[in-house]
């Protein structure tokens, strides 16, 4: 089956797949390069491994969860419960680490717990036939309740360095490349290939373009939608391990707060259409990198760290705005 991504039929008929790297992604690379250049000019210490490596480590969880969120948004849905899900996964895993669990089992635990939470969302959305934003607003509260109950009004203290292979330290790098970022890039690459070159991946786009037409064309819409939220949940689990690894030995109740909006912002800045049917995980990775560059840039320039949110807002408006203008000129041409 042919799923064309662009609505303008005449121009896209010659090419079924969009370009491997879209124009917006090239622009993002350019913007990141400019920001890095400005930062390097202002603070010469910026373009050193000691400054870039923490930046990549900090980008990893947002970009990783962003892969799942991209697929969810491509199907025309959204998941605002990832903040709560991160809290549940990380507090549960951190407590087990304190109890002396080994790293591989702990990762498995986090991923399974995340998967279960994603499954809850997926089942409610796919089979309850309710709008995703409503259901995930609801489950966000439920997950938050669950996470706070697990905390039990106390912080989790004395977390051992079991996850240092994902962390900022020397243990967390091979040949200077942080493991957390390398894993994120690997999963992004896999997802990029899966979404672009397999029938199953193209089905997500078909559902986002027109769910009814996709069903008539033989796509098992409900199973695909369920899978999208399940994948997000699994990645939230792995992302939570990165979050624990980046933190100190203490985990407090603010873990995960506001992360859902940060992830959605990265996806949207990366050029994925919130209306569904169009987007790429490569853009999301770049979007997350851009947001993190701005955040660390604002602190390095000595401005109030709260100012970075203003830039995130402006970037969302500019990214989506230019996309809208392009779509408009395409239509009128």
């Amino acid at each position, binding site marked *: 089956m042919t799923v064309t991504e662009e609505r303008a039929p005449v121009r896209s008929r010659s090419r079924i797949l969009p370009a491997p790297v879209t124009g917006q992604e090239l622009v993002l690379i350019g913007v990141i390069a400019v920001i890095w250049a400005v930062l390097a000019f202002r603070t010469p210490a910026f373009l050193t491994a000691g400054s870039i490596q923490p930046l990549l480590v900090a980008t990893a969880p947002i970009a990783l969860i962003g892969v799942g969120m991209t697929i969810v948004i491509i199907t025309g849905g959204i998941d605002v419960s990832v903040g709560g899900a991160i809290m549940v996964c990380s507090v549960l895993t951190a407590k087990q680490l304190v109890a002396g669990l080994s790293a591989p089992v702990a990762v498995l635990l986090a991923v399974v717990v995340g998967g279960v939470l994603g499954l809850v969302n997926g089942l409610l959305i796919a089979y309850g036939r309710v709008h995703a934003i409503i259901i995930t607003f609801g489950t966000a509260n439920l997950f938050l309740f669950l996470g706070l109950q697990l905390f039990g009004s106390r912080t989790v203290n004395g977390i051992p360095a079991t996850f240092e292979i994902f962390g900022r330290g020397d243990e967390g790098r091979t040949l200077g490349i942080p493991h957390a970022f390398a894993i994120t890039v690997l999963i992004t690459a896999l997802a990029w290939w899966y979404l672009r070159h397999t029938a199953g991946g193209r089905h997500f786009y078909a559902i986002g373009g027109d769910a009814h037409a996709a069903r008539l064309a033989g796509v098992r*819409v409900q199973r695909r939608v369920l899978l999208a939220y399940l994948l997000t949940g699994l990645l939230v689990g792995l992302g939570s391990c990165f979050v624990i690894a980046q933190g100190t030995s203490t985990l407090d109740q603010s873990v995960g707060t506001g992360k859902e909006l940060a992830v959605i912002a990265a996806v949207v800045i990366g050029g994925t259409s919130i209306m569904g049917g169009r987007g790429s995980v490569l853009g999301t990775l770049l979007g997350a990198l851009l947001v993190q560059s701005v955040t660390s840039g604002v602190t390095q320039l000595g401005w*109030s760290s709260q100012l970075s949110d*203003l830039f995130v807002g402006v970037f969302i408006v500019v990214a989506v705005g230019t996309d809208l203008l392009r779509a408009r000129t395409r239509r009128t041409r």
Partner: protein
Amino acid sequence: MTTTSAPPTKTPDDTTQEGLGARALRVLLTQRIALLAVLIVVVVVWFFVLDAGGYLTASYNFDYMSASLINAVPLAMLGLAELLVILSGRGGIDLSVGAIVSLSGMVFGFAYGEWGWPLWLAIVVTALSGALLGAVNGFLVAYVGFPALIATLATFYAYKSLAIVINDQSPISTPPIQQLFSITRSVELPLFGQYVPDVPLGLFTFLLPTVVVVWVLLARTTYGRRLYGIGTNDVAARWAGLPVRGTRFKAYTYAGLISGFVAVVTVAQFASARPDAGVSGNGMALPAITIAVLGGVAITGGIGRVAGVVLATLLIVWLNAGILLAFVGNEGSQYQLLALGAVLVFAALLNGLTTRRYGGTT
């Protein structure tokens, strides 16, 4: 929504032979107001029974219920703001109301607390600043064509950041602001006041006028009919010659205006203009959207009533008030999250079921 692709099927003999029980069930499921009224009675009776059995840490009585209504003021007002925006259709939603409350609260803090403007002028300026911030949302959504979720996510970030940066992260709590706490006190009603509990003043100064104005706007003006029109079918409304863009733009502006008034209430409640007033923790937008959806507002637009939002607020406020008494310390606020989430998922699933079985709610 993408997953609802099968059209609702109606069996022909659905309405002909219907027993009393089935009819009651149908009324409960299709009339959201009836369902909410029943739920409110159930919740209140339940907590009265718990109270009589001695399971609560303090007495759950009419005085307590009346005093807890102060929490209904910001909640219901923002719920009405979301009602206007969601009604306008095309995925209408406003994530930025909490950030607008924070930022215009800071404006109020400066105008009344720092510069010593008269109270009425400070309130007017605060409300106008809220309307201006809402108008930015409206411009992006209605005229540029941004999806509402994206536009208001972006402005949420921007306003939140500005509110914190504008006074270097510190709240404003000068003496005039602190004295403002008096407007949240409870008063005895005139004439028959000694027979009923004292009622929080904010209910009359802010909530009641907002409810009346929004109701008149939606039910008795041309604008209201247009809003339902563009929310139900954007294209049809355009072909019918309605000013689609202007109508949608105004919906976001009015939502900002209401958020501006909420900012005054919030500053008075905290006795301080806090830069994170509307965004701390879960923020104010999520509960407001929850209230709207619980009140029967369809997220797809065009369906929703003021009465539903008001009843949904009463349900949540009295439920939360009871939960606070049923648990000790932090547990209470955590169980409030559970209740809010469970009620929202329940209401959403119910909406879906009703749509399939009866063809929609009213």
